């Protein structure tokens, strides 16, 4: 039984209208190969958005994911020289992401430091260490790592389906596993959650670790798409992830949002720039439209929930 929330429906509706408009005015948008390529390059963003959304659910934020993504990519790139198999790339990227998540989780959940400061610090640290260690040099990846050693089209499908399966299982777990409910409880009211016997610290830690793992996996899904890796990859990726989460209806105050909504939200956000190109608009409208969509999402949250205010007055 899949019940659609109003936010999923709204975002999906906007997406459908945009796509219908494109189908009428710019049917080229839907020619199969560029479409599949765009979906493939969006798959990592979907996973990063998932990770950030999980962290936002606990009333925290992780802005280090872009840097961690780059670190995971570079680490996996180096590893691929000694053991050139796709499995090694994926494993190294995930483990690197896991380590980054553990560090953030330890600092935020165990030492109780504010997540915005912690992840700002780790963001700068990872990025600068990378600059120092790599000096901006690109890393060539072995040929057989491309597309998981498949040919291009099946490889692209593998990337897209992997991301979709992971999103679907996380969305399912959010709804059907007790752990998912713990995230909501801790994000809604950490003290109340503690008073019912849930550990807010452990829950928050897990969210950060999961975010790191998803970031590592996203880096792997990106690595298999290109012959070499830019150590500056992943810049502003954290902002794209936060934007997707906000558009998907995740409340920055924690406790609210459904992971499944990330699918239409991410598709909407990644459709905008190609849509503008196909519709012949000037490219600098791109950021403005992005901004307008995020603003609309935040306003919908603010206007849609007046009871928040009346509740605090009631006390």
């Amino acid at each position, binding site marked *: 039984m899949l019940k659609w929330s109003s936010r999923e429906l709204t975002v999906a509706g906007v997406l459908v209208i945009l796509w219908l408009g494109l189908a009428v005015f710019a049917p080229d948008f839907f020619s199969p190969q560029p479409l599949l390529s765009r979906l493939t390059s969006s798959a990592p963003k979907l996973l990063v958005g998932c990770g950030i959304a999980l962290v936002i659910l606990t009333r925290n934020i992780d802005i280090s994911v872009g840097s961690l993504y780059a670190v995971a990519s570079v680490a996996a790139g180096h590893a691929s020289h000694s053991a050139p198999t796709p499995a090694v790339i994926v494993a190294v990227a995930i483990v690197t992401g896991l380590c980054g998540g553990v560090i953030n989780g330890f600092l935020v959940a165990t030492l109780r430091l504010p997540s915005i400061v912690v992840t700002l610090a780790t963001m700068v640290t990872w990025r600068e260490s990378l600059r120092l260690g790599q000096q901006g040099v690109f890393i060539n990846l072995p040929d057989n790592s491309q597309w998981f050693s498949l040919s291009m089209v099946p490889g692209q499908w593998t990337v897209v389906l992997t991301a979709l399966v992971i999103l679907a299982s996380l969305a399912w777990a959010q709804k*059907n*596993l007790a752990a998912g*409910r713990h995230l909501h409880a801790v994000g*809604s*009211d950490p*003290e109340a959650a503690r008073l*019912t016997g849930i550990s807010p610290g452990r829950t928050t830690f897990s969210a950060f670790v999961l975010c790191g793992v998803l970031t590592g996996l996203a880096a792997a899904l990106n690595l298999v798409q290109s012959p070499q890796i830019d150590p500056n990859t992943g810049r502003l990726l954290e902002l794209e992830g936060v934007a997707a989460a906000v558009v998907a209806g995740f409340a920055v105050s924690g406790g609210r949002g459904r992971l499944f909504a990330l699918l239409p939200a991410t598709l909407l956000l990644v459709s905008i720039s190609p849509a503008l190109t196909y519709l012949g608009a000037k490219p600098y409208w791109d950021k403005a439209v992005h901004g307008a969509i995020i603003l609309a999402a935040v306003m919908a949250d603010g206007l849609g929930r007046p009871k928040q205010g009346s509740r605090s007055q*009631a006390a």
Partner: protein
Amino acid sequence: MTSPLLQLSGIKKAFGAVTALNSVSFDLRPGEVHALLGGNGAGKSTLIKVITGAHMPDAGTVAVGGHPISRLTPAIARSLGIACIYQQPALFPDLTVTENIGLRLESTSPFRRVRHSERRRVATSLLRQVGAGFTGETAVYDLSMPQQQLVEIACAIGAGAKILIMDEPTASLTQPEQELLFGVVDDLRRNGSGIIYISHRLEEIFQIANRVTVLRDGESVVTRELVRTSGPDGTSICQGFDEADLIRWMVGRSVERTPIAIPPASAPNRLTVHALGCDVSGVRNVTFDIRAGEIVGLTGLVGAGRTELARMLFGLTPADTGEIRLDGVPVTISSPAAAVALGIGYLPEDRRRHGIILDLPVAQNISMSVQSRIFPMGWLRPDAEKTLAEQYIRRLDIKTAGSGAEASTLSGGNQQKVAMARWLATNPKVLILDEPTQGVDVGAKSEIHQHIRSLVDEGLAVLLISSELAEILALSHRIGVMRLGTLTAMFDGQPSAAQLMRAALGNQEPGDQPC
């Protein structure tokens, strides 16, 4: 006779269904200390908030210096010379004393130039007036609580306050500090200010007050003059009434006890607490036990350590000394999760904040503490959850649109029942209820009382914390009284409300049963 500084008549104030003040009359004359007394929840804080303009009364008149004031706001109150010194001073800890005084007294225009020498001069002279032993350059951060109170008083004097409200000013003071404060109060009185003095220490009232007004259940029940005459040994003797009269006025008519079945003395001890203490929460040497099927009431003044004790038993601030036994087995309770696993439930004091999770549906709130039992391996089964929730919705008669309705849509009393249902679902051995009927309306209250009574039939041990003596007396088999962080008395049988109040205030009489 000069007109009173402040005259309140027929003041009424209700918050939703709860009446906080119901026809209160009060006046303050120049040059007097007027003590305001009353138990927890008698309406003292609400009355102060009406006087300082923080609350608009629903009915009644406020007159300052003989002039009726129709809309009293905090700003108008301040301009009329009304100042309140709270128990917890509201100063900026990172600024110096001088800066704090300056902020309070000078114009708030953002582009005004600060004249530092003038500011220093004013602060120094005010600090001298209140006899402060520290300079204006001290950071408030470094001051003790009583020193901060002196800064507050200095601000009030500097603002030309004629009506000074002191809310339990001596609660954290040592004897010499208290003498110093009384000296300042005397000076203020001699200069023609009026002081409204709130304290739970009755002996202070006799020492310093000119008049006493007692509030009970939101009404001013008595206002009496204290007549002082010099005794043969030179000490002043107060006439007209004594401490016993004050306590009687505070407690009111005798509360009727509904007889409840006493659990058989042979019933085993569920919870045994021995010499329990915790430095952080200021609780020390608490010893008591609760038998299966017994409700032990726990009362005392606000701040006596009741909630702190509950938080220790639930592992929120784990105890660092003493022993807890559950069914005779020594246990360590280091976290709420451990407490839940051992079969201890805790319904916290502030339901609106932490009792339930308002964003989540009723069913999820009820199943929150039993997830591991009804959801093996963490798999949620919505049907099982719904069945569980509906069972408790029926049993506790929770009024909700359905088990899927968000908890925030329920009324206060029903939210409280949801919180209770959550703990009942865990099949607890011990349930701690902290002010279970605070802020719920009368109907829901008697329902909750019924449910608490029926709980113990199944052998549950209940620790009931309440400031309301009537509630404690109506429900408890035995009643403990806490004072200053420790359990000072445990009453078997049927103590009177006056006995409980005396124990809470620390006025033991020979007739009372010691712990």
